[in-house]
């Protein structure tokens, strides 16, 4: 059964159409890539799913309900921007998440930080960009959510950190949960995805299993993407 269903979802910013009649049905137990160039509507879609934006038209249902308090409790959301303040220590972040989310596994998050060598009393302001990104991912994945929305989780970090982040996603998501990863770094996430959703100018131009695309086109998803979006 589809856990996320969008029907004719549309969002406009003034005269700009950020999402144009997006209809999507995503099932539990999958890792889905929301792929497209900058400005194609990826973040807008994820923000609507998390109730940060209201669509101009269309409908969205998560686990059968319109977006609201109940669906937010099921959704673990990693925004594309760093939102945690510099003064917080790693342990403060864990307490913060424990307060906000009843499905947050503080023990698991603590263990993962320890594995990475991040000390509990280390301040975020003193961490590298890659470390902060890993920390934000860890606290997101330590929730026992039904849907994970990861907006650009690997942008701006080095290849080793990317590797760590992708492995952490594979190793930690509930197998009955849906994971939505938005990125334009397709080559890096390709092998991790079940399905790809390609967005262009707010429209869905492809929604297919990754291996099916590779089989049908004889190309990697990354090569196919470059072809579709060639200028």
């Amino acid at each position: 059964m589809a856990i996320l269903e969008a029907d004719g979802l549309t969002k406009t910013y003034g005269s700009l159409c950020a999402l144009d009649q997006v209809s999507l049905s995503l099932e539990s137990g999958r890792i889905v890539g929301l792929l497209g160039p900058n400005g194609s509507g990826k973040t807008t879609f994820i923000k609507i799913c998390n109730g940060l934006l209201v669509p101009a038209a269309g409908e969205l249902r998560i686990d059968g309900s319109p977006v609201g308090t109940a669906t937010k409790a099921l959704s673990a959301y990693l925004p594309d921007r760093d939102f945690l303040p510099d003064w917080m220590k790693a342990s403060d972040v864990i307490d913060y998440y424990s307060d906000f989310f009843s499905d947050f596994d503080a023990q698991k998050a603590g263990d993962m930080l320890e594995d990475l060598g991040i000390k509990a009393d280390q301040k975020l302001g003193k961490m590298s960009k890659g470390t902060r990104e890993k920390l934000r991912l860890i606290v997101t994945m330590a929730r026992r959510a039904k849907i994970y929305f990861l907006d650009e989780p690997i942008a701006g970090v080095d290849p080793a950190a990317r590797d760590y982040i992708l492995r952490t996603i594979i190793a930690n998501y509930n197998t009955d949960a849906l994971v939505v990863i938005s990125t334009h770094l397709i080559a890096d996430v390709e092998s991790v995805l079940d399905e790809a959703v390609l967005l262009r100018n707010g429209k869905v131009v492809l929604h297919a299993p990754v291996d099916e695309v590779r089989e049908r086109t004889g190309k990697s998803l990354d090569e196919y993407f470059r072809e579709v979006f060639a200028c």
Partner: protein
Amino acid sequence: MAWNFEKGKPIYSQIVERFRKNIASGVYQPGQRIKSVRDLAVEAGVNPNTMQRALSELEREGLLYSERTAGRIVTSDKDKISGIRREMVTDIAEQFIRNMRDSGISDEEILSIVRQILQEGQKS
């Protein structure tokens, strides 16, 4: 990522190939238990469903089998293993012969080159 995949081929079929090769060459021993789907997926850097699909395919081929408590185990069927080894080396040999013939030399010459290289290899 730890496992390398070619660009234009489905990932699951490349995982199947990799296992076939490792079982044929004895990297995975007959009767050996293999890791869980999730652990293998993390190691390979692939989607767990893709890994699951590949392992199911290998089960259908009879190279792996499931035991309820012990997970997945490599077949102990020696004939089966030597069968896929034979199939694999035949493929390699056929490809080699095609390449050699494409360079415009006769089958006798191919044989004599192969013999010569094998003899040189023995000496060293």
